[in-house]
């Protein structure tokens, strides 16, 4: 199954990845090849088997009491941020 350039552009946009002009043909080729490879699955008989999201049976999301257990480490964690102002992460203007 071959993907088109438009397909790859759309996927790259959804994934928030910039792909350069030079890189594009390579990704169209390799993604087409990968999708063809996994297409084999669509031919398999699976009947009404339940999909399996977790490798172990009977696991449930563990819950805990709704109490604060973490401490405030924001200074330590923000020390490695690209851009900080007043304890906030700075990004290019979002709202005009």
């Amino acid at each position: 199954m071959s993907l088109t350039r438009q397909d790859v552009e759309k996927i790259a946009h959804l994934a928030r990845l910039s792909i350069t002009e030079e890189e594009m043909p390579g990704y169209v080729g390799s993604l087409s090849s990968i999708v063809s490879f996994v297409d084999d699955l669509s031919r398999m008989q699976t009947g009404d088997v339940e999909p399996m999201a977790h490798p172990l049976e009977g696991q449930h999301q563990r819950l805990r009491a709704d109490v604060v257990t973490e401490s405030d480490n924001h200074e330590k964690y923000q020390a490695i941020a690209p851009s900080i102002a007043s304890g906030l992460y700075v990004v290019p203007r979002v709202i005009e």
Partner: protein
Amino acid sequence: MLHNLSVGELAERLNARQISSVELTRHYLARIDRFGATLNALISLTAERALADAAQADLRLARGERGPLLGIPIIHKDIFCTDGVRTSCGSRMLDNFIAPYDATVVTRLKEAGVVMLGKANMDEFAMGSSNETSYYGPVRNPWNTRKVPGGSSGGSAAAAAARLAPLTTGTDTGGSIRQPAALTGITGVKPTYGRVSRYGMIAFASSLDQAGVFARSVADAAPALQAMAGFDARDSTSVDVPVPDYTAGLQKPLKGLKIGILREFFEGLEARNAALIHDALKVYQELGAQTLEVSLPHLPASVPTYYVVAPAECSSNLSRFDGVRYGYRCENPKDLMDLYKRSRGEGFGAEVKRRIMTGTYVLSAGYFDAYYLKAQKVRRLITDDFRAAFTQVDLLIGPTTPTPAFDIGAKIDDPVTMYLNDIYTIGANLAGLPGMSLPCGFVDGLPMGLQLIGPHFSEDRLLCAGHGYQSATDWHTRAPKGYE
């Protein structure tokens, strides 16, 4: 030579105060200095910290504390967060990331007294089977430096094989411990999903990832696994099942053990590779095990299933890398979208981008049912096949890889060819089963691995079977030329 002693022998000498942890650490740091550049096995070296930690271990020993890992050097795969130390995950995206906390694996091994020498090179974000996708360059196999060590834990495997450390940690999502262990002639253990905490282990595929260990023998790996295993409240997928005494269980006799030979693994396997596995089966028979053939009919679908599920999960996990809170940020972003796209486009390598895009595609509207949901159904069929097999046998056996190590550069241009290296290892990840690779011989002077797979939480049985094999053979004692 110190680096040829087992972890047990080293611990004896440390406990008897015949050598100090500082001496031992210096010995390994000297080896890293001598061989590090050739193999490119490490991304970060933490020499000063190691000597400080070794001095601490010596103080603990002086106070009378004893333990199988106290004062023993280790190298951690660069996927485990290490407080105050760069944790790059083999990627430009995290080249500037100084982790602000320790992974549980790191904490537990630290408490047991290990001395961290550095962080091991790896395929970027654990995606690869050759350690060629690392931002920091490929790792070389100490058995033949033109060859790959395997991946994604290639640095950890090469370091252990080259005796740069007696123990190294790794992770295994589709075979990333077992496959490099096989290609570098060492022992690699992937525990049951949920056995070892994933807290602080940078996530690739959350339903498949598992932390494990490399060592030169099962007897060496056992105390490391002991320290790493066990429930952790900070990992919501951690399972609260008691951890047996792995070391005490090693000596149990193998008489009556039922070993299943996986028929599908031998189809198309080259004769010389198959012969090594058959030799290993004879060893097991001599040890009193029974062998019988079993079939897992859906197993051939495991590679395409994995290459839907793992990319899907990775596309979700890697969405956190956005240039905002940590990691790589592109220069002069025009707007928020440009910030995201170029930070990610420039920060991630090609294989990572391929897998993110594959995952995005199979999860997207209109394709979700045909690919992702379908793959999850096939995953259940594969898991059911394993479950059925384990009603007849105690363990499964087969090769770890289809071939020995290949040349650096030979397969990097075709993703699908590279993916097929994982053909024997992926099934265990899909089913959450524990698996192990043991050295079992050589083909063209390069090591090959024997794989054992057990039911959930049967690590003790696996380790015992592995130890039995290593007590009757000496493949695991061989060292690559020049690294003895």
